[in-house]
């Protein structure tokens, strides 16, 4: 019964994905297309959950359904919301796409089946990571261990990439300046309800940040959730007041501080004659050194992601504020 349930859920969700994509192709209003893409992210995250990839589902929901939708809507507010008229159809384009797709599908026929117990990753890498995590790091969440410790250099690169995205948006758009508007109190229900919600979201963000060793979570998800709380405040009370709470001047510095924390944690182990980002050097006991290292780098990642996400949102919402 449970095996059948897995199959039913997978088939239904994959069918939903196809339906949503067809709907996005047919719809001409871009607001609706953006909302449908939000649903697409929800369904994809459900599929990830069904495949037991919990951290990926977490990040997909936080980024895909939350932040990405908000960002595209903010961009649509500035550009038009109706798709341009369709150009003439191209047979050559269709032929090339079909040929490439067929080549890709033919190439995947060599892969092992999904979840095959004899795939190389299950035989070599996965057992080694699971065993090493238990011996050397001793935290329940293997994904966090791989992300922050075994592949910590790669995660450092990812953090720098996120920071560069923030820098690029700053160079292109700048954050602008928005005055707080003294609107009459038109929506009391929203104002009253949203205030405790913002507190809840911020506390939940902190919980996800520090609980990432034991359950699903980590720095990336926590940064996005934290920023979603601030975005909620900005949506309901106006961008002007949000900029008074967290000023636009401090955000780039916070992002840089996050990357700096990560880098300094790596550099600190150089002081004890160990390689870069080797957390064993951070304490007399290697396992507690690993714990300390993971805590610090996750804090750095969370700070950098939070500041960059909020910075990008401020940039998009601060452009050409004409009403």
């Amino acid at each position, binding site marked *: 019964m449970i095996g059948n349930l897995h199959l039913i859920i997978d088939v239904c969700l994959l069918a939903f994905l196809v339906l949503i994509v067809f709907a996005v192709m047919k719809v001409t209003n871009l607001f609706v297309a953006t909302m449908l893409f939000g649903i697409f992210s929800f369904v994809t995250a459900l599929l990830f959950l069904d495949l037991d990839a919990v951290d990926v589902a977490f990040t997909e929901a936080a980024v895909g359904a939350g932040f990405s939708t908000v960002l595209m809507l903010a961009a649509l507010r500035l550009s038009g919301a109706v798709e341009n008229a369709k150009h003439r159809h191209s047979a050559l384009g269709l032929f090339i796409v079909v040929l490439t797709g067929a080549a890709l599908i033919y190439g995947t026929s060599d892969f092992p089946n999904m979840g095959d117990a004899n795939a190389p990753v299950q035989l070599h890498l996965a057992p080694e990571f699971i065993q090493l995590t238990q011996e050397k790091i001793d935290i329940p969440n293997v994904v966090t261990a791989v992300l922050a410790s075994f592949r910590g250099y790669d995660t450092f690169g990812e953090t720098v990439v996120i920071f560069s995205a923030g820098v690029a948006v700053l160079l292109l758009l700048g954050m602008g300046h928005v005055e707080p508007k003294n609107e009459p109190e038109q929506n009391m229900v929203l104002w009253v*309800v949203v205030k405790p919600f913002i507190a809840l979201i911020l506390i939940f963000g902190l919980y996800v940040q520090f609980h990432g060793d034991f359950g699903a979570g980590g720095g990336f998800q926590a940064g996005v959730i934290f920023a979603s709380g601030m975005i909620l405040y900005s949506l309901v009370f106006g961008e002007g007041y949000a900029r008074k709470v967290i000023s636009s001047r401090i955000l780039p510095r916070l992002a840089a501080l996050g990357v700096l924390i990560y880098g300094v944690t790596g550099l600190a182990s150089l002081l004890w004659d160990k390689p870069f980002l080797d957390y064993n050097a951070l304490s007399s006991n290697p396992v507690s050194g690993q714990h300390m290292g993971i805590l610090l780098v996750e804090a750095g990642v969370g700070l950098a992601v939070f500041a960059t996400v909020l910075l990008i949102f401020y940039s998009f919402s601060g452009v050409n504020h004409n009403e």
Partner: protein
Amino acid sequence: MIISFLSDICLLLGGFFTLTGALGLLRFPNFYSRLHAASVTESLAAPLLITGVILDTGLTLDSAKLVLIILIMVIANPTITHALCRAAAHGGVNPEMRLKSSEKKQSQTDTELSSKESK
């Protein structure tokens, strides 16, 4: 076990109300009535389904978090309903209902009769 029986009842009722809410969302003729039907799901079916899962789980940290989810849903979703209703009312969605064809003929003959009487 009585708790297991209660959990089954809650899940069954929750599933039933979810289905009726979705059916109402699909079949009602007007935006405001669809809004009302959809809010059945979040106010009634969600607490029932989650209560069913809580009864099945027992008293752990997970069930405390599930109670928090119920609270969030019961507060957030009616707020969204309210905000959507206000936005639609400002946006000009008409709260009139479409008449069925028999009622249309009846109202047409009524207006004809009343116009004849006024002449």
